[in-house]
């Protein structure tokens, strides 16, 4: 298996945070974290597999031209609204949504649409709202939070299109992303 630079970064992060945990809370806390991470991995795997398959299948169904037309750089306000709606409706956790963002990226969606999609998923996603926020934080608070967040994905998409003019924020072509 090839080990990319990103993998080394992640190994270093795990080592540093693990070292801090050990120094401050001892070996028990480290072991507890390892167990928690293992459990989390097992919980996540079936959803991650589904997310990757959804991403792969969507690339077969939606042609490059269509995505480029609906969500590409010249899709304007409609593209941002469409992307936001798609993000709001996307079920599952980050292990489902990010593979979908990646698939849309490969298929020709522009930076604004990608940002609007992921912002809508994270701020307005129904799944988490129903499962966690509603029971734990109450109906009134959840409604207030949802309503004030409603316009935010489109705003983020507009900002992303502006930022894309600077090279620091311009996304590379995903096809050229060597792993």
């Amino acid at each position: 298996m090839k080990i990319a630079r990103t993998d080394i970064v992640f190994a270093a992060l795990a080592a540093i945070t693990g070292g801090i945990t050990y120094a401050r809370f001892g070996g028990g806390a480290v072991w507890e974290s390892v167990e928690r991470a293992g459990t989390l991995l097992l919980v996540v795997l079936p959803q991650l597999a589904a997310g990757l398959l959804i991403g792969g299948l969507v690339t077969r169904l939606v042609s490059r031209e269509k995505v480029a037309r609906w969500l590409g750089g010249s899709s304007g306000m409609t593209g941002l609204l469409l992307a936001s709606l798609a993000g709001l409706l996307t079920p599952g956790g980050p292990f489902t949504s990010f593979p979908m963002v990646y698939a849309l990226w490969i298929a020709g969606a522009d930076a604004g649409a990608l940002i609007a999609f992921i912002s809508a998923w994270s701020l307005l996603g129904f799944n988490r709202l129903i499962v966690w926020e509603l029971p734990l934080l109450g109906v009134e608070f959840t409604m207030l939070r949802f309503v004030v967040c409603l316009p935010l994905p489109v705003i983020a998409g507009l900002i992303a299109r502006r930022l894309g003019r600077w090279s620091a924020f311009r996304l590379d072509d995903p096809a050229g992303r060597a792993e």
Partner: protein
Amino acid sequence: MNGPLILVWLAVIVLAVMVWRREGVVGLKEGGVSALGIAKTLSLRLPLALLTASFLIHIIPVEQMTRLIGPTSGLAGIITAALVGGLLPGGPMTSFPIAIVFMHAGAGVPQMVALVAGWSVFAMHRMLAYEAPIMGWKFIALRMGSSLILPVLAGLFAEGIVAVVGEIALP
């Protein structure tokens, strides 16, 4: 099996049937190959990322931050709450219970809105565990740049609404 999991696998089945009807077995194979490609990339970094995230749950001092985000803390409190939200460790199963702790400790409603929005947008844990491995750091830079003001906007909108409709009932 839980509800969301059934839902995503139903989506997989529906999409697979659609692909099969259009392209036959070849289309299904191609879709699988593309999924497997990303899975290979993730095989090493995802476990490492999850490990980092669970170490962070120990390291971040959550409860000391509550004092800064009371109902009278205004814009400064909203900005602080958005940052605190971004630092909340773990997925919804750990972060929402922590959010309740803040709420009961006396955080203001607009500040709580900014906190939950900040967690939704910045979620450091999610960024490390899924976004960086799948989308790369440049995408994260763009997304952070684009969404920096979102939780603050949410808090300010909420402050406006609370000023009009009065206090919000909390559980």
